[in-house]
Structures are given as C-alpha cells and as structure tokens.
C-alpha cells in the first residue's frame, strides 16, 4: 500500500499558546469541517478542557490536502494533551506521528511546557516544525522567539513559520511544511501487523472505541486480534476514521490513524501504548515505548452529603471508563465517612477528576491531603508501597522511607530569582542549574520531592512571580528521606483524614498550624478537648478546643418544657449527624473547612 501521500503529525504547545485555534484553522482550510459547522475550538470536547484551554483527551482527525505539488495528501492530525501529568499519554500520541508542529506564542515566548513537550517529541524521533503563533498581537516579539528557539531548543530559527491561528495567517505555509518536511509513515515494512493504541474511550452504545495508528499490515472488521501486552485475543467489530466525526471504513492500512472497536467491555482491558497484532500471525516485537502507568498521587474523595456516596461511586465508575489512569477503591474515614481512595497521574489529573465529579455529576465532594506513593523498606521484610499515611507501618519496623522526586523546569522573570530559590529550598529542593532565557527570564532546573509540590507550590510560584512564572516537571527517581507519619489527635483519638507523611524537619510547623486551625474551627465543646499533632507517641504540637462557656436556656417553666424538650431532641439528632471522634462531636464541615483552607 502506498503511504507516500500520508503524513501523521500533531501540535504541541504550552497552555494557551493557541493550539486548538490553529487546529480549527487547519480543519477549515482543508474543508474537513465547514465554517458553518465549526463551533469554536472543535477538537476540545469537554467543557472543562475548553475552560482551562487544555486538551486532556486527544481526538484525532483525518484531513485531505491538495498540496502545491498537485497531489492530494492524507494528513492525520493527532491532538495531544498539554500537561505533564499525561506525559505518557502525550508520548504515545507523539509516537503515532512522524512530525510535530511546535507552537510558540509570539508574545509569551518559550515556556516550561514548550520545552518539556519539545523534548518529548525529540525523544520520539519526530520532525519538529516550529510555528510562532499570534504574530498579529501588538506585544509579539518575534526576534526573542527566534532567539529562544535556537538557544533553548536548538532549533534553527529560519525553520520557524510565522502564523496566527486567529487571523488565519500562515495556515497554507504550515500545511505545505507538513507535507514537505515531515517524512511519510515509518516502519511500514515490518513483516506483521502492528497497530499502536494511543487512547480509548467508552461509548455506551458501541463499547470501547480505541484510537489507533497502524504502522504495518491492515486491520478490518472480523479480524481476530491480539493485544500484545497481555496476550488477550478478541475480534474487531468495526474500524473507521475521523472526518472529524467517526466514519466507518473498510479497513485501516499502514500509516492510517483511525478508530477500532474491539469486542471488549472496559477501557481497562486495552492499555494506552499497547500494540494490536493479528492473533494468528502475531508480530514478534511490540511497538516501542509501552509502559504500565501507575498513579503517582493519591487522595481520599468523600461526598459532603453521606447520601451521595452511591452517586459518587457511579461517577467514578463512569469517569474510569474513559480514563483508565484513574484508580479508586472504597475506604472509610472516621472523620469523613464513606468515600474512595483515588489514584491519579498527577496534580492536574487529580484536579480535573474532582472538578468533573462536581460539575458533570453534581456531587459536592471534599478531598483529603494528597499523598504520593512512598516506598517503605522494613527490617527483614520486602519493601512496601504506601499511598495512604494511614497504612504507614509501625515506625519501629521501618529501615528507610523513599519518596518520589521530580525534575522541575521553572521559567521565571529573573527579578524573582531570589524568592524562587527560597521557595525551592523551603520545599526541600535543590536547584541544579539556571539558564538564561533572555534579558529578563531565567529557567531553573530543580530537583524536588513530589510530595512538596502537591499542595501549594504552583500557587506560591504564581504569587512570587505575579503570574509570570511557569513550571513543568518530569518524574525523577525515588530517594531516601527522613520522613515521618504525623497523626492529628482530637482528644487523644487520631483523625485519619489529617494523618500525613511529612519531612521530620517540617513536622512541628505543620503540626502546629493544623492544630491551631482545627482548634479554631471545632466549635466550643462542653468537655476539655486537646488537639495534638504526634509522631508515634510523641506529641509535637498541641492546642485546645475552646470550652463551651454558656449553653443554657434562661426560662424553663411548665409551658416551656415541651418546646425545650423538642429543642434538645433536635440538638441530639444534630449531634448524630456530627462526626464522633471519641466522645467529641464535630460538625462534619469543620474537617472540611480545615481541609479547604489547607489546600
């Protein structure tokens, strides 16, 4: 099959650099979608994505383009998620291409994510076409962008195409570059069928729909195929392409990007990055780059209304159908009731899932402190992974605790360098090197514990740099660290939702802050109640809940007794709804308030 007229490419960019608008222009220019059909930003299906200007789920699309050479090319555009949390998914959709448009906002220049994504694309062997976008902005600084391209990304500046997705400038030039600079599909002559799965989504009518790129061989309805990661065999029910809506086709051949419906029930069964081959003529080697992804960040999610538990369960189930990276299991918390321990690829992934539960399923939820996955070496025992502080083994048995680290690339205006270095130090990080981006900007490469960036790192970064800083990161290795489990006790009873794993040097400060906040938020109690932070049996901070000063009815005579009795009964019922920590009744929203103010 002739693949010389096929080009597979994607667009990579920092958030807000105009990826979606440019995609839309390409679809319009190639008449894939008429202007009339064009809702602004066609490829971003989810509201949340649109709002945040980031694509989480990729939606490939096939275009037909008549090039200057008079030939009709089939161009497959694969949209990519823009965030490091999804870097494995990004790498798989990059792997489905031979080239990438690297988009740079002419006014913003190279940002942290631009660098991270460019490195990912280089690593996949992609031909990169730099596109400087939004050149019609008054604040556009082309000269700077060009210099950054060369200095930071080592891409020759003369390769850059000047464009504006918004005004339609440079669109034809981009399409020509795609045809001329990006090579035709690779690995087409492999002697067996190999198809890369780079995403799956669940459709309630058709089941699991996988987005796939055929490298060699063909695939069609009725084929018996095998998923190479697991050896699982199944039948193909349907194949097709995106125009951009799904259009059923006869078969997918080498170089094609499209969808495959396989007779399986759950997206869990077909992993991103897996290779599909024919069951009776299987390939010997999988396509490179497959990885089992594991959640890196965990937290508990609890419904604010206990009665929403079932709804939350259903919502998580539905989300997981389209997001196999999300894991969850039921858990119970003394403070928060019934909920779920959930695992996410990273912080953004966690935020997005929480936000979707709130918006799309209308469930009010509260999350506990996020935790990373620790590796705990025990004396004379195998090391265990701990993603919930509650499950931390007895300190006496622990030989060593290791925590995951990240390599962060932080871009900031150089006037804030000092403050930024202080923040990195406060967060137990080290700055490996600093690179000058231009006259006003520097890039720091820092090693940080993942744990330290979970809560407020990004907010602090934004606040220090007045919004001008940006950060991206990749996961580093595990490192031994002096970590301890800190319990928060109310009246001597541990409150599970507040247990955390912290660096020993920070335990006291954090413990004190938490105790103060809890003592302040818990309403006055009739009994004397202490709030304590403790490492093992050692109390490191304490505070007292305010004592109830006065709770007595002044007038209580014959005519008042019924009313008074009803009031006391009501209060008693109210207390039932409160969380009982030992003998202390705490309104459920007290914990929530503390969790909220600490996030």
């Amino acid at each position: 099959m002739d693949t010389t007229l096929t080009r597979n490419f994607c667009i990579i960019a920092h958030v807000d650099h105009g990826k979606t608008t440019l995609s839309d222009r390409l679809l319009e220019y190639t008449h894939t979608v008429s202007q009339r059909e064009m809702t602004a930003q066609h490829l971003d299906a989810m509201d949340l994505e649109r709002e945040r200007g980031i694509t989480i789920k990729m939606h490939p699309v096939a275009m037909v383009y008549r090039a200057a050479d008079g030939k009709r090319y089939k161009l497959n555009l694969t949209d990519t998620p823009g965030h490091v949390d999804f870097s494995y998914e990004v790498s798989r959709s990059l792997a489905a291409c031979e080239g990438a448009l690297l988009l740079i906002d002419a006014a913003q220049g190279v940002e942290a994510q631009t660098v991270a994504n460019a490195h990912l694309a280089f690593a996949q062997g992609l031909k990169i076409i730099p596109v400087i976008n939004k050149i019609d902005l008054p604040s556009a600084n082309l000269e700077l962008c060009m210099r950054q391209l060369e200095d930071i990304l080592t891409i020759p500046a003369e390769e850059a195409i000047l464009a504006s997705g918004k005004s339609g400038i440079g669109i034809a030039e981009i399409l020509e570059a795609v045809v001329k600079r990006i090579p035709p599909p690779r690995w087409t002559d492999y002697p067996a069928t190999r198809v890369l799965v780079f995403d799956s989504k669940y459709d309630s009518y058709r089941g699991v729909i996988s987005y796939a790129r055929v490298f060699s061989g063909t695939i069609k309805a009725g084929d018996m195929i095998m998923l190479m990661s697991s050896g699982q065999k199944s039948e193909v029910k349907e194949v097709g392409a995106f125009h951009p809506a799904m259009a059923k086709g006869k078969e997918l051949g080498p170089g094609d990007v499209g969808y495959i419906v396989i007779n399986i029930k759950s997206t869990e069964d077909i992993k991103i990055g897996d290779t599909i081959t024919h069951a009776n003529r299987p390939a010997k080697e999988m396509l490179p780059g497959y990885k089992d992804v594991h959640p890196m960040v965990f937290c508990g999610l609890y419904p604010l209304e206990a009665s929403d538990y079932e709804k939350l369960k259903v919502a998580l189930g539905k989300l997981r159908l389209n997001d196999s990276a999300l894991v969850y299991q039921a858990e119970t918390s003394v403070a928060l009731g019934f909920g779920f321990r959930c695992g996410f690829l990273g912080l953004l992934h966690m935020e997005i899932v929480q936000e979707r539960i709130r918006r799309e399923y209308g469930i009010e939820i509260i999350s506990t402190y996020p935790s990373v996955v620790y590796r705990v070496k025990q004396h004379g025992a195998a090391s265990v992974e701990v993603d919930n502080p509650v499950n931390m083994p007895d300190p006496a048995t622990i030989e060593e605790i290791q925590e995951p680290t990240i390599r962060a690339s932080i871009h900031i205006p150089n006037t804030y360098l000092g403050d930024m270095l202080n923040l990195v130090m406060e967060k137990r990080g080290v700055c490996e090197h600093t690179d000058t981006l231009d006259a006003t900007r520097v890039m720091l490469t820092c090693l940080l514990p993942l744990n330290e960036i979970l809560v407020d790192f990004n907010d602090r970064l934004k606040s220090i740099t007045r919004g001008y800083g940006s950060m991206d990161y990749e996961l580093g290795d595990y490192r031994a660290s002096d970590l301890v489990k800190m319990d928060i006790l109310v009246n001597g009873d541990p409150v599970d939702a507040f247990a955390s794993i912290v660096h020993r040097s920070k335990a006291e400060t954090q413990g004190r802050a938490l105790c103060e906040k809890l003592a302040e938020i818990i309403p006055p109690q009739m009994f004397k109640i202490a709030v304590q932070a403790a490492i093992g049996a050692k109390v490191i901070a304490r505070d007292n809940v305010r004592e109830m000063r006065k709770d007595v009815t002044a007038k209580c005579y014959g005519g008042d007794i019924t009313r008074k009795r009803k009031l006391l009964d009501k209060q008693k019922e109210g207390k039932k709804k409160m969380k009982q920590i030992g003998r202390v009744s705490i309104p459920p929203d007290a914990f929530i308030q503390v969790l909220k103010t600490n996030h």
Partner: protein
Amino acid sequence: MVELPSGQAKAEPPLGVYFHVPFCASTCDFCAFYQTVPKGNAVARYLEGMEAEASLVEWGARRATTAFWGGGTPGLLQPAQLLRLGAVMLARDGGRPDEWTVELAPATVSPNRIAVLRELGVTRVSMGVQSFQPALLEALGRRHTPAQIYRAYDLLRAADFPSVNLDLIFALPGQDEEAWRADLAEAVRLRPDHLSTYCLTFEEDTALWIKLSQGRVRLDVEKEAVFYERTWDYLEAAGYAQYEISNFARSGHICRHNLNTWRMEEWIGLGPSAASQFGGWRGANPPDLSLWHEQIASGRRAQNDRVRLTPELLAADSIIFGLRMNAGVNVPALQACYPAAPWTEAVSCLRRLEDEGLLLLESGGQARLTKRGRLVADAVGVEMLEAFAATARDIP
C-alpha cells in the same frame, strides 16, 4: 443551700394549675409568649372559653395545690374580669391553692386589682420589672417607667402579699456589667422575697430576633456567661439563694409551682398556648385565641405536641430539668420511681460529667451541677438525652 419544701409531705400529690392570660397592651421586643392586644369582647369570650375548658378537665377529686396565672399580662383584666377568672380557679372544691402566683406588669398594678387578688386568695405576685433604667426599658420596648415600678411595688407591699417576686433581664444590648450591677443592687434594695433574673434570649418570631438576624444587635456568649456568674455571686452574697438557673429566693420563698414542674409532677394548663402534664399525657393548647376557642368548643384540649408520659420520658426529663435546680436530683429515688428506664448509661453519663467538673455526685446519690455545669445545662441535657436514647435502642 436553701431548704426545699418537701413536695410529698402530705399524702396529697402536688397538682399545679396554670392559667394563660393571652393579652398585652403591646408586644415587648423579647417576648415569645403567646399574647395579643385585646379587642372588643375578646376578654369576655376568653373568660367563657376558660370556663368551658375547665369543665373539660377530668379533675377527679384533685385540688390545685399551686396555681400560677401568667401571660400576657393577667393584670390587663379588669377587677371584675379577674374575679370571674378566679371563680374558674376556685370552682374546684377542696379549697384554695397553697401557693397562688399572678404575674403583673408594673403599669397594671392598681389598688382595685390588688384588692380583688387578695380577696381571691392570691399569695404571690410576680412583677416584670426587667430593668430600673429608662434607656434599657425603652430598648426592650417596655411600656413602664421606673416611677411606675416603685409605685407598683409599694402598693404590693402595702397589700401584704406573702411573697413578691421581681423579674429582671440581663445581657441586654448596650448594657454593661456596671449597669447590670446597678439593676441588681436596686432590686435587692427593695427587698423582694424572690428574684428571677433572665439572660436575654433571642427567640424566633420576636422583634429582637429580627434585629439579631439583621445584625442590629449581636450575640455575645462570653458576656452572657460573665453576667450569669456575677449575678449568682452577687445575689448569693445579698441573701438570695439560687435554687434554679434563673431563680433566687430568700428563705421560705421558693416558688413551689415551678419546683413541681421541674420535678415532673402534674399540672393542668388552661388558656391558649397553655401546656399540661396530666393523666399520663403532656400536651399544649394551640397558641392562638380563635383556634383555642374552636378546640374547646369541640371538646378537645392540650392536643398540640401531645406525648404519652412514659417512664423513660419522665426519667430523662426529671434529670434534664431537675439538674437545672441547684439541689439537683436524687438518682436512687428516680431509679426507684422509674425502674424501667435505662439507668446504667444514664449513671455513666453522670460520672463522665463529674469527671469533667460539670457535676457533683454525692454519696447519697444526689447529683447536682457545678457552676460551670449550670452554665452549660442545655448541653448537659443533650448529653443525658443521648445516654437515655443509647440504651433505649439497645433494649429490643
């Protein structure tokens, strides 16, 4: 400590009778009692209703041992009307109540009314002074002046009522500790037999509640607590022994009618909104004149919030309301009285409260709240309710 009149001294069980007189000249900002400004023949109709309701009660051979007329303002009735209401009270044979209290607003105290009340056999007058300070009276929406208070008090004393009580209110918006102390001192100077001091309560459906919800007045729990403590200390030192959260008496002047209520004895309440605890039931009349008339006309009374008096309910309420009294409750006596109630949990709850310094459990089984405990008596009540409910659930 005060000596308490022993309720069971005579073979005759105590029976309180309460008349609610639902009329006021105007509504005070803090008042949540059912009252209305009388119009046309409303009072006459009310008196007919009281006669009719009294005839619905199955008195048997019971005599009212104590009586209490509250309101509203019973003093708003004309002397002849008071006489007619008195006749309803005295229609039950067996003689006059041993203690008979009538609430009077200072502005309604007149020689004629006093004469009628003395003639009927009223032994005790409770006067709603609230404050001796014009600004605070104004703030409360009260219609009397300090001068009227003094005049009324002199008339009552001259009429030689065996017991006179004055009501005062504290923790008023704009009232500082000094102002309150001045009111207390003035009350003590008059040497009444009994004092009731009420912390201002923000009750729903009052003008004050509206001001509170609009942020025009502020709730200050700490101030209230301090005022309570100062009041208790001050009156104790002045010879008024506290016997309940808000009640103080000189020796021999404890209000027995109220005491019997807190001891979960029986009482019959007549009139709109009046509550009864009698014949195995507790319930109240509708807090509305015309609804009350309707109910009485159809032969029904005390139907609102009607509950059967089970041993569990009486045991719990004996403790909850009994602990409001300084003397507290005698646990073994209650246990003997209501053996079916879940006592194990109740006693362990009392012990917990004792551990926290909120309550004293004496060797004879007498349980009484400490000062700190009295200040949180409602929370203690909820705790007791939980204790009783916990075991009630365990009993199949």
